[in-house]
């Protein structure tokens, strides 16, 4: 009897979760020896600009330091990038942006989207395949496409965790580990982040090549958006990829490449990048990352818990025909030559569906 554990996708799911767990443990392990030795000091309280009643005697000096009227550039004996700038005003702007905007708004964005997903799941529940599984399979993703996807996903996940530790560690981990303990973790995460970063850029480019063909928008996608993607009930037509998937694809391309390029600028700071370029790159990098991570929650939700039968496409490479009819009816028609009749907002099941086997575009099974 094939239980969940014994099926191919069951085993792969297990392997997948096992690998996530082991990677998480690996990342968490450096924290342990130092967590034990860490001083029980909480996080340093932030310096808050205090409001003073008296006028500041150094106000003129400070105004010059802040260079609000423009950057003061001098010259020095040492000739290199930014060597003529004694006081880096953009650094302060950047620090304030990071602490006052990026960190909190990023946290709100991530928490907000996560919360919205949880709420959605509690209210709407898992979207089941109308009429249940048919038993007939259709090939959806090739072995190369799946390999590229999981490679990108794995690398993204590693980068996201290490990146978030670098951005939020000061607030979240120092209270737990102490400053010294966190410094070890941060050093480890920085090295990992820098190593996997260039890999992510290559991964995104591979995804571009392997997936771009069916991801161009058309008029049907407007209808899909208008109907809310069918997420609140009802049926919407779609081709191989629906408008939501296409949006996610292009977001990943745009922000992924932005991440990659800004990351390369940051990591290989030996090509004459000045501080302003570095600060700007960091801003782009942070914003892109937080957006991508937040929306990835949605992607992961829909691909796993949210919609029955979806994960199969990326693990086994094929999907149930009933799933295809419900979510990608035009693609189903292309693949099988059958037409899908839609009644009263729900998909009706046509024809006998009891056979096994996989329908694929060419001869042979999906590879």
């Amino acid at each position, binding site marked *: 009897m094939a239980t969940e554990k014994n099926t191919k996708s069951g085993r*792969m799911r297990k392997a997948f979760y096992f690998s996530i767990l*082991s990677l998480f443990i690996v990342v968490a392990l*450096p924290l342990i020896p130092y967590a034990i030795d860490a001083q029980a000091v909480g996080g340093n309280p932030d310096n808050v600009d205090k409001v003073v009643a008296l006028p500041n005697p150094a106000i003129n000096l400070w105004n010059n330091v802040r260079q609000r009227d423009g950057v003061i550039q001098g010259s020095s004996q040492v000739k290199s990038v930014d060597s003529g700038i004694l006081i880096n005003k953009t650094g302060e702007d950047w620090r304030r942006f990071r602490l006052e905007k990026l960190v909190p708004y990023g946290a709100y964005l991530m928490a907000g989207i996560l919360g919205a997903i949880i709420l959605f799941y509690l209210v709407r529940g898992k979207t089941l395949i109308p009429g249940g599984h048919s038993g007939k399979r259709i090939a959806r993703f090739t072995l190369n496409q799946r390999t590229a996807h999981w*490679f990108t996903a794995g690398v993204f996940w590693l980068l996201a965790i290490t990146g978030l530790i670098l951005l939020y560690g000061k607030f979240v981990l120092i209270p737990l580990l102490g400053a010294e303990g966190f410094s*070890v973790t941060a050093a480890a995460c920085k090295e*990992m982040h820098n*190593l996997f970063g260039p890999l992510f850029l290559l991964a995104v480019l591979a995804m571009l090549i392997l997936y771009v063909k069916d991801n161009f928008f058309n008029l049907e996608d407007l209808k899909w958006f208008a109907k809310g993607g069918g997420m609140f009930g009802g049926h919407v037509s779609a081709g191989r990829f629906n408008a939501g998937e296409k949006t996610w694809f292009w977001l990943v391309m745009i922000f992924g490449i932005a991440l990659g390029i800004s990351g390369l600028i940051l990591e290989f700071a030996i090509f004459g990048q000045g501080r302003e370029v570095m600060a700007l790159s960091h801003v782009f990098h942070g914003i892109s990352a937080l957006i991508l991570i937040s929306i990835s929650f949605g992607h992961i939700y829909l691909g796993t818990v949210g919609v029955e039968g979806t994960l199969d496409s990326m*693990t086994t490479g094929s999907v149930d025909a009933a799933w295809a009819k419900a979510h990608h009816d035009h693609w189903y028609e292309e693949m099988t030559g059958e037409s899908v009749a839609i009644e009263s907002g729900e998909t009706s099941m046509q024809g006998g569906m009891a056979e096994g086997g996989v329908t694929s575009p060419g001869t042979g099974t999906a590879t």
Partner: protein
Amino acid sequence: MLEQLVDGILWDIALVVFFVGIAWRIVDVIRRPGRNDLAEPRSSGISAAIMANIHGFFPRREISPQIRIHVIAGYMFHLGLLMLLFFAAPHVKFIEEHITGFGWTVMPYWVFVLSAIISFAGLILLWIHRLLNPVSQLISKRGDHVASILVFVVMLTGCMALAESSTGLRLFHRFTVELLMIYFPFSALMHAIMFVPSRAYTGALFGRRGVKL
């Protein structure tokens, strides 16, 4: 205390198990029967054995399209790892201090980083392919996954310790290396050494019959 353990007794144990284990496995092959061939050969088996070891690095054109990922990701991982192991500055220093007593030229830092990126990419691609391809899904054993993950962990801890600024991270890396060394002689990782006699035996058999492996 952890430092004494990892830098001290555990290293000694790992070293002994590694070298003695490998030697034992090799002896275990050679001592068995089944290596003599009484049929009159067409050409020398010994030169065929050597040539098979060299030709084995180049896949046959007839199946090259189907095994592209094995070959490309495989070489990315192995060559990258070779560079990392033997030409990365911290490793050369370590080998000089703890094993051989002499060192050699190290590669520049950017080559180190590039090798690491290539090696990681190869290893991750290979492991994902192993999980997704129906053939390797059927034939892969627990040991194959353990070996992949263990090597990944060793490389990852090495990457974490790259800045060479923390004793804890260095110890963690060394500890995982010691685990790998102890696991190595009893695992699929022995292919790193056993491929030589395997290719030799098969190459010799076919070579004696006049067929180039």
